[in-house]
């Protein structure tokens, strides 16, 4: 891992300032600034094409911004690091679709996610340590999957896969968790459960949730940032932003 390059120090866990990303002249992000405090859960909403996913890509190192600063944990300049470095620093990402390693057992999925060894040279000769086994047992207990630990992930039900993925995120133990549209295609009951799970995770981790389902965001009950055309349009509680005439205009059309 490259040493985090020294950038302007800030008390915010995640600090974006003047971030601009353009694809062939189209500005997916346009001078976006955003602060996430340690321990905070933040919801980011916005209509399609507002730049939500691009923002996540910038933070996780998948996309490099053309301009602007992206600083994690006060010191690490994320614009200089790649996905692997950023993940090692402590930023986890959950994708919209549950992505577990289908051909691996539940236990191996968790082992791969477990914070620690990442180098191919060390993994060639590494045996799981006692500490790792204890941690795996603990996580298997939390997600209540001890009985399925040797089952291939492909054979799990949809709900079990979601649990496994949450277990993987716990194993990865990130400081900041980015969650992309967690309730797309879910029923109302499942949406409510997911909101509870995220609040649970937020007790020990900072979370950024990207979503465009207003009801879900209301259920989370956290500070909301509204993106529109790659910039911040409004920020505040869900009631404040939904009363904002500019937000209403963006969501309901002109």
């Amino acid at each position, binding site marked *: 891992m490259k040493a985090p390059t020294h950038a302007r120090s800030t008390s915010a866990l995640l600090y974006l300032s003047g971030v601009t990303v353009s694809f062939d002249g189209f500005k997916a992000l346009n001078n976006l600034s955003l602060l996430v405090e340690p321990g905070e859960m933040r919801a980011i909403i916005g209509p399609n094409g507002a730049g939500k996913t691009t923002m996540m890509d910038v933070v*996780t190192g*998948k996309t490099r911004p053309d301009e602007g600063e992206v600083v994690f944990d006060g010191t690490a300049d994320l614009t200089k690091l*790649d*996905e*692997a*470095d950023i*993940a*090692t620093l402590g930023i*986890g*990402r959950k*994708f919209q679709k549950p*992505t577990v*390693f*289908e*051909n*691996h057992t539940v236990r*191996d999925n968790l*082992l*791969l*996610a477990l914070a620690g*060894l*990442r*180098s*191919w*040279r060390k*993994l*060639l*000769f*590494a*045996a*799981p340590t006692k500490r790792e086994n204890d941690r795996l047992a603990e996580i298997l207990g939390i997600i209540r999957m001890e009985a399925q630990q040797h089952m291939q992930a492909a054979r799990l039900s949809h709900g079990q896969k979601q649990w496994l993925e949450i277990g*993987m995120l716990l194993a*990865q133990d990130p400081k900041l968790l980015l969650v992309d549209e967690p309730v797309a295609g879910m029923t109302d009951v499942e949406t409510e459960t997911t909101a509870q799970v995220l609040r649970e995770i937020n007790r020990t981790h900072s979370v950024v949730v990207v979503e465009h389902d207003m009801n879900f965001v209301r259920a989370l009950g956290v500070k909301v940032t509204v993106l529109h055309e790659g910039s911040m349009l409004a920020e505040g509680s869900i009631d404040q932003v939904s009363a904002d005439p500019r937000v209403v205009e963006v969501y309901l059309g002109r």
Partner: protein
Amino acid sequence: MITRFLWQGMDRNLRLFILLVLAIGIVLPLLNQLMPPTSPFYVPSWVLQLIGKYLCYASLALAVDLVWGYCGILTLGHAAFFALGGYCMGMYLMRQIGSRGVYGNPVLPDFMVFLNYKELPWFWHGFNHFWFAAPMIIIVPSVLALALGWFAFRSRVTGVYLSIITQAMTFALLLAFFRNDMGLGGNNGMTDFKDILGFSVQADATRAVLCFSSALALAIFLVISAAVVGSRFGKALTAVRDAESRMRFLGYRVEGYKLFVFVLSAAMAGIAGALYVPQVGIINPSEFAPGNSIEAVLWVAVGGRGTLIGPVVGAFIVNWAKTYLTGALPEVWLFALGALFIAVTLFLPRGVVGLWSQLRGRGQVKKAVAT
């Protein structure tokens, strides 16, 4: 630590299979050497040569499977690494001919005399020694794989684009090795070998040892491959195959994983090629033909991608069919190959080995139901 590393990936089936490979490599040469030609147990030399060739192909198939089956890199240029290993061995064998060539030049091989070379090209120096040629057999293909993989994996070239690059690589080498200026025998390649390590390559005893060496090499490759894919590295490797970007976001630097197996696999292919050349007695640019690499992929598909036994079984089945059909019905072979590819894709997505374990699995289910 090394012992544990080497044993961790092996299950009972694989251990038995490795013993079978070794048994073939020991028993057939012994029967050839010890039995009189009149005995029903006598194994003729041509059989030894054929089996030795198949064993080399099986090693190449295993190398292809390691990158394709376990890491998802569909290589369509692996025969190039095989051929490069073969050329290194060919250069050593050419220098062993010495003054026994047609032109009797003690230093220059015949084709160089014929092409009016005045002195040995620089890259031929050292190849008169086996201790120099042997490491080159590993180094030359590995360095090419390292260079190609370094650029391709770092630039995140994947999928069909990577396949096209590997195909282009072997095609470019084919064209390069066809040139007489290349100093490697051009179109005709290298042949008329006399000695290897002081023993005549034509002698039955040498053939027996070469056949055994090919089996031993394959057995060692199986052990190494099992250790690699059975380690935590192997778990990460198949995870890269199944969900590469997920692995990046978990903090894995995926390029290192791909590069390591790609280079390991190229080295295995190179050694297989080097053992192949003295047994067939010739190496020429046609070994770089794109079709050869595609055929190697087909062996893996037939046998069972992502298993260690599969590619070996596939290489033997397809090559035995090829030997038989090109002799009995030569005009049918290419159609049979095409039909086989379609049939495997449609009906045997997990190959022969996959079919076998499926049948066994079904049998076990029946037994379980009965009890």
